[in-house]
């Protein structure tokens, strides 16, 4: 750690307009030269708002109400607008979450890189030449080609990883002192993510720049940050060196957040956090985490805990810091002997979109009562395969057998009984539920079609919601009155209501927070154990596979390159692609969450 301070935030408060709701409040942070601060929080915690405030920017509908953001000795919040503009890109730069939408689709990447250097102010010839050299230099630094042909490309002509590298290059081109990175690897494949993270790390070191790395992913942050700040409901609830926080989290939220991260070795149980984060408009008095905290007492609900320094440089906002729950060993999954009769068999399936073949030679078996994970990165064809199985993508050759009986290719040509037995849960719970229908209507919809008239519809709804761990009184709500996790549970309840034998889950946790993801995984394990439900779990996340499935099939470019029992595939992977996937996934085992670290 070096002495001079690059970033000093004091008493920062950002409010919503016109509600005056506090989105970010009472934030104090300091960051030394060359340090990387990991800013961790779930959706709605205010981390992006805070990140933008570090550049003195507030999104429409928000406003920076008070506090100071001092970067290299100058308070950006009191500088005149013109000075702030000059500081952006030169003193403090920003790397956005999704470069696909943050790069201007109508401008060549060269234009977008060059303008960071001089805006449009200087038109002198020698400056332009210098600029051109600098563009090429920074492109080489992020391991992209520096040819004129490449510089003349438009953003849509680049891959997702290349676009993110451009965004990184754009941030570093002005040699800033501080870089704010807002979830720069979310949405990227693990291999691309690893390369991007390496690039970020190398660039920060090379330029001696400090970084604020915003993420919801503890595993990623742990690999890059020197210091950690955990945000909940607009406040920093715990801050300290990464080592100290990961070894002994003192705030119950931090501890629960760490325990919610899936364990790649699947030895520790991944436990979700019940409930969901409060919206800025309806934050409880007292500690915002109290309603979800097992350790909460009356005084937690009464007063807002002030930050307490538990050790030097490690502060916690909790009235009784330092009694986190211990990690529990994972309960073993049902034995995956594969002895049960197969519910579903896929034989020699190849599928295409128009003339492009996206799947070929797929062989897959789902044994009764077990879970098969379909693991693949984006574009591997895993969604196409699951859509073909459920009858939504009829353009395929080969056979799909349900209990040994061949299914028609298209959903319309399958019998009601066949459709009832195979149910599908979609990736995005925000789009999968009709916003104009109540939960009750949503759950009953497929039941009425597939099972005809039911004697007691209310009992069906109650039962389905209960199996999806939802309160019965949610039946009258509309989707927009539910949180993301609740929506996904409604989608699961809707599928369960028809009494399926096989549930196809297409990346159902990828748009959810890690704490919510864990509770969905818990639910799926419970459904498998208690009800003997068979699952086809489609995912890109290796750690989830290990915690949920007995079998795994690894999909690459439309072919299954490796399949077998999860234990075998993960301990002795045969195929190089499987090996690279395992290697590229961050191995996250903070000292605190290690089983052997205690008793």
């Amino acid at each position, binding site marked *: 750690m070096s002495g001079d301070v690059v970033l000093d935030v004091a008493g920062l408060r950002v409010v919503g307009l016109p509600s005056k709701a506090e989105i970010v409040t009472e934030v104090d942070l300091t960051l030394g030269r060359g340090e990387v601060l990991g800013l961790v929080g779930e959706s709605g915690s205010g981390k992006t708002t805070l990140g933008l405030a570090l550049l003195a920017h507030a*999104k429409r509908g928000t406003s920076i109400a008070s506090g100071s953001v001092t970067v290299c000795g100058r308070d950006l919040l009191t500088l005149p607008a013109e000075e702030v503009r000059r500081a952006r*890109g030169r003193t403090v730069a920003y790397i*956005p979450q999704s470069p696909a939408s943050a*790069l201007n689709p109508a*401008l060549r990447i060269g234009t977008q890189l060059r*303008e*960071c250097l001089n805006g*449009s102010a200087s038109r002198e010839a020698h400056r332009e030449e210098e600029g051109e050299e600098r563009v090429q230099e920074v492109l080489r630094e992020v391991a992209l080609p520096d040819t004129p042909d490449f510089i003349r490309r438009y953003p*849509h002509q680049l891959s997702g990883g290349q676009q993110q590298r451009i965004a990184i290059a*754009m941030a570093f081109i002005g040699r800033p002192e501080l870089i704010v990175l807002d979830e720069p690897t979310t949405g990227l494949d693990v291999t691309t993510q690893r390369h991007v993270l390496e690039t970020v790390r190398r660039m920060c070191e090379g330029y001696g720049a400090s970084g604020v790395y915003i993420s919801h992913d503890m595993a990623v942050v742990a690999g890059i940050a020197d210091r950690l700040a955990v945000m909940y409901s607009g406040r920093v609830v715990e801050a300290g060196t990464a080592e100290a926080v990961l070894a002994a989290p003192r705030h119950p939220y931090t501890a629960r957040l760490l325990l919610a991260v899936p364990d790649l070795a699947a030895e520790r149980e991944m436990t979700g956090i019940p409930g969901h984060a409060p919206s800025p408009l309806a934050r409880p008095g007292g500690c915002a985490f109290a309603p979800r905290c097992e350790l909460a007492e009356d005084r937690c609900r009464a007063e807002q805990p002030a930050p307490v320094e538990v050790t030097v440089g490690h502060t916690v906002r909790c009235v009784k810091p330092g009694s986190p729950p211990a990690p529990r060993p994972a309960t073993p999954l049902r034995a995956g002997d594969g002895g049960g009769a197969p519910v579903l068999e896929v034989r020699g399936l190849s599928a295409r979109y128009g003339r492009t073949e996206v799947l070929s030679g797929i062989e897959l078996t789902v044994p009764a009562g077990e879970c098969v994970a379909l693991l693949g990165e984006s574009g591997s064809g895993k969604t196409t395969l699951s859509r073909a199985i459920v009858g939504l993508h009829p353009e395929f050759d080969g056979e799909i057998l349900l209990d040994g009986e061949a299914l028609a290719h298209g959903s319309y040509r399958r019998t009601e009984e066949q459709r009832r037995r195979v149910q599908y849960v979609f990736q995005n719970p925000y789009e999968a539920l009709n916003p104009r229908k109540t939960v009750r209507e949503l759950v009953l919809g497929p039941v009425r079609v597939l099972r005809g008239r039911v004697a007691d519809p209310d009992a069906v709804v109650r039962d389905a919601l209960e199996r999806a761990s939802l309160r019965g009184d949610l039946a009258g709500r509309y989707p927009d009155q539910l949180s993301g996790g609740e929506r996904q549970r409604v989608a699961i309840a809707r599928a369960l209501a028809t009494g399926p034998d096989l549930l196809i889950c297409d990346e159902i946790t990828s748009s959810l927070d890690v704490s919510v993801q864990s509770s969905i995984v818990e639910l799926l394990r419970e459904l498998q154990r208690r009800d003997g439900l068979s699952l086809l779990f489609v995912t890109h996340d290796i750690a989830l596979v290990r915690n949920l499935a007995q079998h795994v099939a690894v999909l690459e470019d439309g072919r299954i390159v490796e399949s077998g029992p999860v234990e075998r595939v993960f301990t002795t992977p045969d195929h190089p692609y499987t090996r690279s996937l395992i290697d590229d996934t961050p191995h996250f085992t903070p000292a605190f969450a290690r089983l052997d670290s205690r008793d």
Partner: protein
Amino acid sequence: MYRLIFKRVLLGLVILWAVSVVVFLATQALPGDAARAILGRDATPERLAALQAQLHTGDPMLVQYGKWLAGTLTFDLGASLANGLPVGQYLAPRVSNSLVLMMIAAVIATPVALAVGAWSALRRDRAVDHATSLITLVLAALPEFVVGIILVLIFATGWLHVLPAVFAAGEGAVWQYPAQLVLPTLTLVLAVSPYIVRMMRAAMVEVLESEYVQQARLKGLPERTVIWRHAVPNAIGPVAQVIALQLAWLAGGVVVIEFLFRYPGIGLALMDAIGNRDLPVIQALSLLIAGLYIVVNLLADIIGLAANPKVRTAAR
């Protein structure tokens, strides 16, 4: 991209041909004798026979259409029944008069409307934005002849007496009488602008909210560059279609305005021709207006395609 443009041009020609069929069917091929319909009940047998010969109404329908189409393609549109002049010669000055009026209206309306729309978006939710929204809504709701009459009341007959109420120029080209052109042009501008303003505002609002505009600001670019380089070009793409529709509407909308101001263009010519049952003139003008529609929309499509780098850089 060239293949796409070629396809659109081809499609435009097909549509133009379809329009010619409809025009033919709606005028000459109506049940009953076109010549009798034109001349009315009191026509003498000699005149009737002469007109039937001119219109080839004795021939089978397909032959009639063939002859008419062949004439149209060779710019031999027949002679006006009202004044005996060849249609081309009769219409040429009127077409150019109307084009002058439309061009002036388009050249003024498009940039002004785009600027007002963009400005309104930049001042979103402030008084200026609300005022613009209200005014454009009112203008969009009023029929253009009402707008024209109100303008006449204000500037010509009622309150101020600064501009002529009707177009009363003597010989020579219309642009030699700029004062006479003001009111018709202004009416057309007010008729086509509201939609462009509203679309431009909506498109700009969306673009200004986009992440690439936020990123441009966070890069420390001057606000001028943010707006002119990052925001406006991305907003104009979707608006181009609306501009095209509005400019195409001018071709038809000009009829009412010309009638209102007695402006010697195709609109007035069309009204006269309908009054006189001057079949060749009606046919020629209908085709001309349809052709203008198609050409303007085609141009908008091409501009839209060219403005989209994804299309422009596509391999095929």
